[in-house]
């Protein structure tokens, strides 16, 4: 793995990626796929959250692919700590299934999106480029949870972290199934503006995550999750 990283470092890649995945075949597979892309380079790969938290500050990656279910510290907690160390790093969660509760918790913890592990290579590389560039993708089902979350948080939070009317509008259209393109058409805005709005929504979601209310929300959510196991 190290030799792959070394090999790629020489080819002046634009986006530095780190993989955190406990299953070695998938870790290696991801490293390979990322390394093949001329715009991406895989600078390191870790098997556990503990190792990732030690190593990533030195790697200074742009994007981290983070498995949601890691042994020991899980992906959600790892993202939370990582965002404290490197506020600018973008994290994409990896999950086998659409586990919406966990996915949403990781978004609140600071992740900028998620990918199903079965996602094809093209889509995976696309998603990395997108999350590094113009913005974070948000699905309708996640948008529904985000709406509910802000409604809940709105009761106890200061004005500064509330969604703007435009952001609220975009979020609700998204939750109602509209695509970015459709939202742009409907609101007579550019696709770029919509992406910026979504990016800001993610940002406010993360800001929230440092607050007391969010901590409470997370504890309750993680209690629900831990009940599962």
């Amino acid at each position, binding site marked *: 793995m190290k030799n792959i990283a070394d090999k790629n470092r020489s080819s002046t890649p634009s986006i530095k990626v780190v993989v955190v995945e406990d*299953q070695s*075949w*998938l870790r290696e*597979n991801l490293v*390979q*796929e990322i390394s*093949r892309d001329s715009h991406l380079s895989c600078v390191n790969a870790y098997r556990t959250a503990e190792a990732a938290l030690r190593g990533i500050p030195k790697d200074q990656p742009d994007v981290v692919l983070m498995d949601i279910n890691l042994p020991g510290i899980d992906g959600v907690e790892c993202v939370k700590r990582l965002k404290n160390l490197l506020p600018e790093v973008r994290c994409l969660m990896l999950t*086998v*299934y*659409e586990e*919406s*509760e966990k996915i949403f918790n990781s978004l609140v913890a600071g992740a900028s999106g998620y990918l*199903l*592990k*079965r996602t*094809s*290579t093209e889509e995976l590389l696309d998603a990395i480029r997108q999350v590094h560039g113009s913005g974070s993708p948000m*699905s*309708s*089902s996640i948008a*529904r*949870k985000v*709406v*509910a979350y802000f*409604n809940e948080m709105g009761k106890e939070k200061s004005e500064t972290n509330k969604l703007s009317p435009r952001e609220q509008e975009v979020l*609700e259209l998204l*939750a*109602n*199934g*509209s*695509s970015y393109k*459709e939202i742009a058409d409907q609101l007579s805005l550019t696709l770029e503006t919509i992406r910026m709005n979504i990016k800001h929504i993610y940002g406010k979601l993360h800001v929230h995550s440092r607050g007391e209310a969010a901590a409470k929300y997370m504890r309750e959510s993680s209690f*629900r999750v831990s*009940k*599962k*196991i």
Partner: protein
Amino acid sequence: MMLVCDNGEGQDILHGAIQPQGSNSTTTLYFRFRVDPISDSASKSIADFEAGFMFFYNGEEHMAIGSTRVAWAYCAWPVSKTEKGFQDLNSARPDPPYRWEYIRANEPLYIAVKVQYVPSHEAHITAWLSPDLAQGATEVNQPTNIVTQFDANATFDQIHLIHRGGVGGGWRFSQMIAGTSFEDLLFRHFWQEWWFFAICGTVMLAVVAGMVRLFERRRALVQIQRLEKERAVAAERTRIAQDIHDEVGVSLTKISKLSDLKEFNGNVSEADAAARRTIAATARDTIRAMDEIVWAINPENDTLKEMADYLVYFTKDLLRSTTISCKLEVPLSLPDIPVATEVRHSVLMAVKEALNNAVKHSASNEIQLGLEVGGNWISIVVADNGKGFNLDQASEVGNGLENIHKRMSGIGGRVEFTTEPGQGTSVKFHVPIGTVKSIL
């Protein structure tokens, strides 16, 4: 009917329980009391009335049953027709040389008295010394030698149980009864006493309460066992979901990823590459199908909110690879209603069928998913703006429609198709949620 009982005090015992009986009275009254002489005898010497059961009228003594001067035995007093002013009560055990039975300490006995009032005449008095008062006894079957009958002025407005001492110690009175029949004077079996009824009532109440509690506990126990069982089932479902997730899902992911790897593209023929792509796509489809199963059996998802979220995810995911746009009419906040696994699964399968039909056959450019909650029902609508079809000739989708019907009837729901050629198709599912049992 019993009128009064001994109150244990030496004053008027009636307290208004019995109407005063004047010279015009026509009633018959029965009295009983127990005497317990404190000493062997009343005084031999001349003395006043010593102890007894005494009628008062306007503050004057009229008739008493008791002991009096010189009468060393139980007697009635004052009785105007006798010389000595008292009437011997036929002592049961003569104690020669005296005519009358002594009054013995520690030999308590009962005296029963019947008073028949005769208007403008003295009352007929019958006194029984130590009568048979067992249940079933009557006033006529008493031994004659204990019965004394005489006439006397028996008017009263007060009755006193008194003992005035003298040389003898007087009497202790107890168990006084006044009634309107001889039966009232009889000893009652313990099961006829008020306290027995009280105890019986209490015991019965306690028994009933105990049984109710036992029943409640039994029911609670059954309930707990049922919940435990449900919990166990839920835990098992979670475990299965987790196992599928961990084992099969990961393996399939592996297949999809490895067969998708571009690395080998240069080394394989186009046919092999195509086969590889098919393998990858099949693995992905299988994961997607498993995704649905895992979602369906995981008890964490047994709520309306989770079901709605998943239907949204599922619909969007299905339409992602098409050019059909998606419109959602699903409330963003939903009541916290439990939805059983079988209901969720059937709804998902039915919605999937409807969506697949719309995608494959409708040639529409927009599909709408709607969800509404009302009363004990939720309704879910899958509508397209496509070409619609004639329901009678729906051979192409006939199988699918039948499946949908089957899914819905299995959970007590129903389905409505609204379609016409050129008018799009709307499939509306009505699903009962009132009868759905909640899983802890």
